[in-house]
């Protein structure tokens, strides 16, 4: 070693330099381990909780435990107990324990439809005490895709069987309906042939009768035009005559007015005569009434008339 020291200055204190280098490397590696450990939660305080599963299927050590979508722990151990049940221990980060109630449920689910299995713990009922370290929770398996398919199959198969039976029953509604449709289509064919014949006949009739009718209508329109022309010519004459009639009416009204004015002095006398006539009429009606009354007392009408009231007229204790 002294040999190098002697020849090259860079090799001076070589041991010290090497020791510093190794120490820095070891320190960096240690720091990296610590950071990874912190990241992985190796230094986070955890609390064990337990549940019992009916089988260990789909359960595995290291399986994540999630709460509201966040990983808060993992499955630690799986063990079969004396009754053949699976005792499961999961480690939950202690700081999340206060969020979980005693009646929380641990569910085995799939992430997505065909994803890995995870354990998801529910929050539990508000108001219940928080779950303590070492506590037990209930376990259930969420229905997965396979189970859903089985349920659907169980429901659909009987329906398919019914449909199959309905379609193949010779006396069933479907077969009968098809038979009726077949017969109907045969009848429809006959109906169509008859309809074709009727339409052909209608076409012939239209050609033979509607044409003359249209011709007649055209003639009537021409006549109407002629009448309108006549009216155009005669209407002014008629209006002139109406004016003349109105003038005559006005003259007649004036004549009546004059006549009334001339006879005005005679009106009181006429009114008196009218009043007298009315009085006589009234008397005549009275006499007629009397005659009717008198007649009603004689045979053969007498039997139908009520007898006269024999008693005194009404008067009570307060009159």
């Amino acid at each position: 070693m002294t040999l190098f020291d002697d020849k090259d200055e860079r090799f001076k204190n070589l041991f010290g330099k090497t020791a510093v280098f190794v120490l820095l490397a070891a320190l960096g590696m240690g720091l990296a381990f610590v950071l990874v450990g912190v990241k992985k939660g190796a230094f986070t305080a955890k609390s064990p909780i337990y549940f019992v599963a009916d089988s260990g299927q789909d359960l595995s050590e290291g399986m994540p435990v999630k709460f509201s979508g966040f990983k808060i722990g993992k499955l630690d151990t799986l063990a079969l107990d004396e009754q053949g049940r699976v005792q499961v221990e999961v480690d939950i980060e202690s700081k999340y324990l206060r969020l979980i109630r005693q009646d929380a449920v641990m569910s085995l689910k799939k992430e997505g439809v065909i994803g890995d299995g995870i354990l998801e713990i529910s929050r539990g009922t508000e108001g219940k005490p928080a779950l303590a370290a070492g506590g037990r929770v209930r376990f259930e398996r969420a229905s997965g895709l396979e189970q859903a398919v089985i349920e659907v199959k169980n429901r659909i198969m009987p329906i398919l069987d019914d449909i199959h039976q309905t379609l193949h029953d010779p006396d069933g509604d479907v077969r009968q309906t098809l038979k009726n449709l077949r017969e109907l289509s045969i009848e429809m064919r006959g109906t169509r042939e008859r309809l074709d014949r009727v339409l052909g006949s209608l076409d012939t009739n239209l050609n033979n009768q509607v044409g003359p009718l249209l011709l007649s209508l055209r003639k009537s329109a021409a006549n109407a035009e002629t009448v309108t022309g006549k009216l155009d010519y005669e209407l002014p004459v008629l209006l002139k005559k109406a004016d003349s009639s109105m003038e005559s009416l006005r003259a007649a009204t004036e004549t009546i007015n004059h006549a009334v004015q001339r006879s005005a002095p005679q009106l009181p006398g006429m009114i008196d005569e009218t009043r007298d006539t009315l009085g006589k009429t009234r008397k005549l009606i009275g006499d007629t009434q009397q005659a009717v009354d008198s007649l009603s007392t004689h045979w053969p009408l007498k039997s139908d008339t009520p007898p006269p009231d024999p008693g005194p007229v009404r008067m009570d204790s307060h009159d």
Partner: protein
Amino acid sequence: MYKLILLIFAGLLAACSSAPVVRQPLAIEQAGAADKDARKALRDGELLRAQHDFATALALQQSLDDTAGSATTMINLATVAHQLNDDRAALAWLDRILLEKEAIYPQQARLTAAFRKAVILADQARLGDADKALRFADKLCDRKCALNFGIDALRARLLLLNGDAQGALALAQAVGKQDGAGKAEQANALRIVAAAEDKLQRPTEALQHYQAALEMDKALALSERIGEDLNGLARASAQLGRDQEAAEYSRRAVLVNESRRQSDPVP
């Protein structure tokens, strides 16, 4: 058509086959016609014409010695005179029946005359004479006649006028409960009950009974009594301190009485 002619022939044959009713003598027919005319005039409110026609009928009946008819017509004449506010003439007509020494008029006519005389005397506040006439009527009736309820109602009224409100109340209540009394007499009885309660300082009950009497009088369309009922209601309401109601009843009574005077038939 053929069947119709056959039917007419059959009808005529049946008419000819039955004996025609023998025609009454002319005087009897005339008396009947006059009586009928008088009743019609009375219904129409033509009191003077009714009086004239009843007088005509009476003359004819008396000339034919129809004492029963004469008595009825004299009672009718008395009633018309009372409606004409000529109570002196009314009492004179009734006395012609009641003071007849010989028993030529039927008992029913004498009973009716006595009762109506009592009513008219009560209206004149001649309570002693009214009571006397009423007792005579009651004696003739012997509680068996149709006027029995009217007699009791009038007796209750006389008791009230004599100041015996308790007695009037008991008697009128008994009449008011009788179904055979007729609506008019029941209303009269209710009015007496209410008036007696009014005197006995029982305005609540009086109000109730005046209301009931008002409903009955309205149904009978007796304008004068409706006015009386409304005045009674006004008095009872005033006693109860319900001045607003009392004023309303009084106003209604005034309107009813004024309208009645305006619509009264011209005699």
